């Protein structure tokens, strides 16, 4: 078949809609007068139609009822292991947030040091010498002014022999922040053992010690 120069290069582009507007207009003008180009374009269009027809017929023969279920099954089968996903996450994170190993090591050492210091802090505080009675009374008075609590009774030696155990002597009294009850309540500090008693009873005169 005789073909002009346009047919060789531009007809497929025209068919695919790839030509810019000026060239497309020029091609349409050319097609009116050029029979080989018109025929070549017709053949291309016919070929496209036949191809679509064949594909459609093939697709009609396929059962798509379980298509998405199959996709989900495949996705589930191909789910990578936890270790692999963690490694991928670490690598991706490492790429976006590049931090050198020494930085991680320093952070870990700092955290460990912080943890050790936190655990030793209480022991260090207790190992300090106990405050003098005047200091303790002053401290107790400050606490009295900050929060409501039973009347202060000066510290007395406890039965637990705390000093022999290496602990600072502390009052056993409770500091009450809030107390509510549907019954009558009495609160007192027993000076004998320096502990707080909360008594709840409907008939206080009969039951209260």
């Amino acid at each position, binding site marked *: 078949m005789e073909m002009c120069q346009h047919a060789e290069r531009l007809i497929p582009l025209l068919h695919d809609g790839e030509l810019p507007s000026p060239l497309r207009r020029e091609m349409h003008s050319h097609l009116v007068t050029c029979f080989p180009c018109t025929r070549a374009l017709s053949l291309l269009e016919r070929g496209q139609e036949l191809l679509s027809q064949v594909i459609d017929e093939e697709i009609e023969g396929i059962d798509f009822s379980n298509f998405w279920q199959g996709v989900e099954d495949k996705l589930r089968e191909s789910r990578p292991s936890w270790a692999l996903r963690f490694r991928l996450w670490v690598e991706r994170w490492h790429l976006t947030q590049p931090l050198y190993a020494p930085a991680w090591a320093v952070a870990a050492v700092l955290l460990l040091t912080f943890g050790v210091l936190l655990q030793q802090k209480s022991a260090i505080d207790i190992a300090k010498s106990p405050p003098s009675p005047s200091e303790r009374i002053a401290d107790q008075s400050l606490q009295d002014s900050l929060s409501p609590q039973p009347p202060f009774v000066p510290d007395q030696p406890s039965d637990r022999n705390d000093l022999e155990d290496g602990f600072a002597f502390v009052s056993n009294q409770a500091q009450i922040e809030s*107390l*509510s009850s549907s*019954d009558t309540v009495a609160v007192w500090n027993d000076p*004998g053992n320096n502990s707080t008693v909360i008594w709840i009873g409907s008939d206080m005169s009969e*039951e209260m*010690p």
Partner: protein
Amino acid sequence: MNLSRIAPIGFTFALLWAFQALAQEVELRIETVLATNSPVIAPGLTKGFEGKFNSDLQKQLTSAFPYESYQLLERVSRKGQLGKREDFSLPGGRLLQIAPREYTNHRIALQIMLMEGSAPSPFMNAALSLPNNGTVFYGGRRYQGGILIIRIGATVKE
């Protein structure tokens, strides 16, 4: 496995360890005593104690309460954590709920709730703080012809 991979994993473990160090363990002790004024049978004694009493509990009861005999009904010790509530069953279908809230200046802050009734409802709600290893007494509820006295103790391991 090279250092660049070991370091983040080590960091993670260190982080977990640091958080664990922050979560302090609290030991809660509940001793339930039935106090009555029934006569003491044992000769030579002015007060009667039935059950395995600690000497400090005996002395505290003798000092603080005027009853003639004491019966230790139950002694429970349980380990909990700050911020986590613990429930203790008491005689007479009562329920004691203790939530250690925080530990500062060697004092343990506790939220204590006493409940009773077939559909337990709170009849006492208290927020208080005890010195570490300290105790507080609750009393006044009737039970089997006597009065219940409950000693609550809390200890944080330092």
